C-alpha cells in the first residue's frame, strides 16, 4: 500500500479501533476470547474496508458503509421489533421454536423454545461461552476467518453475543428452528453485529430458518457472520431469508464445514437491503459429503445484492450443486461469483453451478462469474449462466396457450422464483415465501 492508502485505511478504521478499546474494557471474557477479538481488530485495522480495487469486491462498492459513522446499538427492545418478528415467523404458534436476537443480542421475551429434544441447546452465545466454553472456544471464529474478509474480522473483533445452537450425536430436531435477527437503528446510525454458531455432532439433524429483518426508522447496517459445523453423517436443511429495510446495508459471511457423508442444504433468499453482500463458503471436508447452495434475489429500486460463493471440495466423492436466480427490476443490480475449488486428491468430485438473471428493465444489471480451480483429474465440474430480458420465444409459447400480455410476463418472471422456491421442503415456509415473491413481483407491500 502507498502511504496515502495507508492513511486512508487508518482514517476509516480509527473509529472502530477506538470503539474496540472501549468495548474490550467493558466486556468480560476468558483470555482466548480476548485474544480472538484482539487478533481480529488488528487484522481489520491493517486491511480496512475493501474497495473495488480488490478483486473479490470489484463489482460492489461498500463506500456507503465505509464512509459512514456507525456506533454500537443501544440496549433494550426498540419499538416495532415485536411486530417485525410476528410478521416473519411461520408455522402454528403452539409448535414454533423461535429464538429472537435484537441488534445481535439474545432476547428471551421474544423467544419460544419449549419442547427441544434433550441435550439440544438453543440460545445465547454469551451464555454458551460460560456453559459450553470448550465447544465455543473450539469453533467460534475458527472457520469464518478474519484473514479472509475484513467484515468477518470486524464481527469477530466485537463478538459478544449471538445465536448458539448445539445438537448432540444422533439427535434429530423435528420441528424447524427459527432464528430471527432484528436490527433497529436509533438516533445515530448503528451497526448491528449479528453472530451465529451452529454445531451438529455426528448423525444429528436440524432444519433452520435464519431471518434478517429491520425495524424502526433509524439508519442501520447489519454485519452478520454465521458458522456451521456439520458433523459426520449429519443432515442440515438451512434457509436464510434476508429482508432488511430497503435503505439498510447488509454484509454477511456464512461458513460451513462438513464432515464425512454429511448433507448440507442452504437456500438463500434476498429481498431487502440497499447495499448487500453475502459471502458463502462451504467446505466439503469429509468423503461423500454433499452440499446444495441455492439463492434467489428479487430486487428493484436501487438495491444491490452480491452473492460471493466458494465451494471447497477438500475430499473425494463429494457432490455440490449451486443454483442462483435473480430477478432485477428498475435500477437493481445483482452479482454472482461462483468459485469452486477441487483440492488435490479430491477425485470423483461432482459439482454443478448455474446462475440465471432476469433483467426486467433497461437499467437493471447483473454480473456473473464462475471461477474454477481444479487440482484433481477425475472430476466433473459444470457451470452455466443465463442473463437477459424475458425470452420472446417463451412469451409466444404462453400466448399460443391463451396466456397473454402482463399475465404471461408475470408467469415467466415468477418461474425464476419458483425454481428456487421448489427447493424449500418446509411447506409453511414455502407458502409464506411464495406470497413474499408474488408480492414483490407485483410491487405490493408485504
Amino acid at each position, binding site marked *: 500500500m502507498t502511504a496515502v492508502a495507508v492513511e486512508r485505511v487508518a482514517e476509516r478504521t480509527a473509529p472502530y479501533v477506538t470503539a474496540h478499546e472501549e468495548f474490550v474494557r467493558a466486556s468480560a471474557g476468558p483470555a482466548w476470547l480476548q485474544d480472538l477479538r484482539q487478533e481480529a481488530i488488528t487484522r481489520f485495522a491493517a486491511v480496512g474496508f475493501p474497495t473495488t480495487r480488490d478483486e473479490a469486491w470489484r463489482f460492489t462498492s461498500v463506500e456507503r458503509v465505509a464512509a459512514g459513522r456507525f456506533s454500537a446499538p443501544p440496549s433494550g427492545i426498540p419499538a416495532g421489533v415485536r411486530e417485525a418478528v410476528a410478521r416473519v415467523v411461520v408455522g402454528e404458534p403452539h409448535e414454533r421454536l423461535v429464538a429472537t436476537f435484537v441488534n445481535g443480542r439474545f432476547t428471551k421475551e421474544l423467544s419460544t423454545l419449549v419442547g427441544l429434544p434433550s441435550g439440544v441447546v438453543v440460545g445465547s452465545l454469551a451464555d454458551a461461552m460460560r456453559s459450553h466454553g470448550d465447544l465455543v472456544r473450539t469453533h467460534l471464529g475458527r472457520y469464518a476467518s478474519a484473514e479472509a474478509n475484513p467484515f468477518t474480522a470486524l464481527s469477530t473483533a466485537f463478538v459478544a453475543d449471538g445465536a448458539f445452537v448445539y445438537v448432540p450425536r444422533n439427535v434429530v430436531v423435528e420441528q424447524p428452528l427459527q432464528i430471527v435477527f432484528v436490527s433497529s437503528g436509533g438516533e445515530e446510525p448503528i451497526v448491528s453485529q449479528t453472530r451465529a454458531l451452529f454445531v451438529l455432532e455426528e448423525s444429528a439433524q436440524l432444519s433452520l430458518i435464519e431471518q434478517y429483518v429491520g425495524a424502526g426508522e433509524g439508519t442501520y447496517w447489519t454485519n452478520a457472520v454465521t458458522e456451521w459445523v456439520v458433523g459426520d453423517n449429519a443432515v442440515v436443511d438451512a434457509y436464510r431469508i434476508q429482508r432488511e429495510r430497503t435503505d439498510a446495508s447488509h454484509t454477511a459471511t456464512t461458513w460451513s464445514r462438513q464432515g464425512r457423508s454429511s448433507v448440507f442444504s442452504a437456500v438463500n433468499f434476498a429481498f431487502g437491503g440497499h447495499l448487500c453482500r453475502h459471502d458463502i463458503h462451504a467446505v466439503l471436508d469429509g468423503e461423500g459429503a454433499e452440499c446444495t447452495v441455492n439463492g434467489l434475489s428479487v430486487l428493484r429500486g436501487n438495491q444491490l445484492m452480491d452473492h460471493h460463493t466458494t465451494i471447497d471440495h477438500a475430499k473425494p466423492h463429494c457432490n455440490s450443486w449451486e443454483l442462483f436466480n435473480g430477478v432485477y427490476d428498475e435500477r437493481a443490480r445483482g452479482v454472482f461469483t461462483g468459485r469452486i475449488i477441487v483440492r488435490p486428491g479430491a477425485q470423483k468430485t461432482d459439482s454443478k453451478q448455474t446462475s*440465471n438473471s432476469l433483467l426486467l428493465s433497461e437499467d437493471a444489471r447483473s454480473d456473473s462469474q464462475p471461477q474454477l480451480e481444479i487440482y484433481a483429474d477425475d472430476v466433473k465440474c459444470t457451470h452455466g449462466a443465463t442473463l437477459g430480458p424475458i425470452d420472446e420465444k417463451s412469451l409466444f*409459447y404462453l*400466448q*399460443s*396457450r*391463451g396466456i*397473454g400480455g402482463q399475465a404471461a410476463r408475470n408467469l415467466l418472471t415468477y418461474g425464476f422464483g419458483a425454481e428456487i422456491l421448489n427447493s424449500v421442503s418446509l411447506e409453511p415456509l414455502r407458502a409464506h415465501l411464495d406470497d413474499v415473491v408474488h408480492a414483490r413481483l407485483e410491487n405490493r407491500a408485504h
Partner: protein
Amino acid sequence: MLDIKNLHASVEGTEILHGVNLKVGKGEVHAIMGPNGSGKSTLAQVLAGHPAYEVTEGTVALAGADLLDMSPEERAQAGVFMAFQYPVEIRGITNAYFLRAAVNAVRKARGEPEYDTIDFLDVLDEKLKVIGWEDTFLTRAVNEGFSGGEKKRNEIIQMAVLEPKLAILDETDSGLDIDALKLVAEAVNTLRAPDRSMVIVTHYQRLLNYITPDYVHVLHNGRIVRSGGKELAHELEAKGYDWLRQEAAVAG
C-alpha cells in the same frame, strides 16, 4: 371451420407463402406435406400468430371470424392450438401450474369461472384419462430436461387439456422413434371429434399410417400444388418430392 384465401406471408422481408388457399371443414383432418423450405412450418406459425411472420396479402377466417386480426392469445382463446415443432422450456413452472394458467386464461376470456388448484386436478385427471396417459409430467417444469419425445408428448397433453376447435400439429412426428410415434398418434386419434378440426403438418408420410387424414395437400414453394385423399400420401411416399421440382421446372 378454417378458410384460408390467397395467403401471402413474409419473414424478415422474404416472402415464403405466395398465395395459399385451403378450406378445412368442421371435424376434418387435413395433412399438409411438402419438402424442406416449402413453407409448411411458416403456414402453421402464421395461423398461430407468431410475431416474426408478416401477412402481406389474403385472409384467414376461423368460424367466420377474422383470425389475422387476433393476437396469439385471442386465437388460443378462440380455440386455436398449435403443437410446436420445438416446444419451449419454461423455467420453474410445473406443467400442472402452466396448464391451469392456460385453461383459466381461456375460461376467463370466455366469461367462465376459473378453476382453483384442487378442482383443476380433477379436471386434469379426467382429461388425461381420455388419452390414457399418466400424470408423470405434471410436477415437472414445463419441458425442462425433457427428451425430444417427451416434449412432443407434452404438446399433446396440452392439446387434450385445452380441447381446441382447430389443432395444428407442426411436425409433431419429427424426431420420434416408432414407439413414441405410435403413442402420439393414438392419443391424437382419441382426440378426433366431430367439432374439432386438425391440420397436420408433416415432412414424412409415416405418421399418416397411424393418423388417417381426410385430405392431403402438398405444399411447394409457398403454394398448395396438389390436393387429394389419403392415397396422395402413399403416392408421395413412393415417388418422393423430386417430381415436384420437375413439374415446377416444366411449368417455369
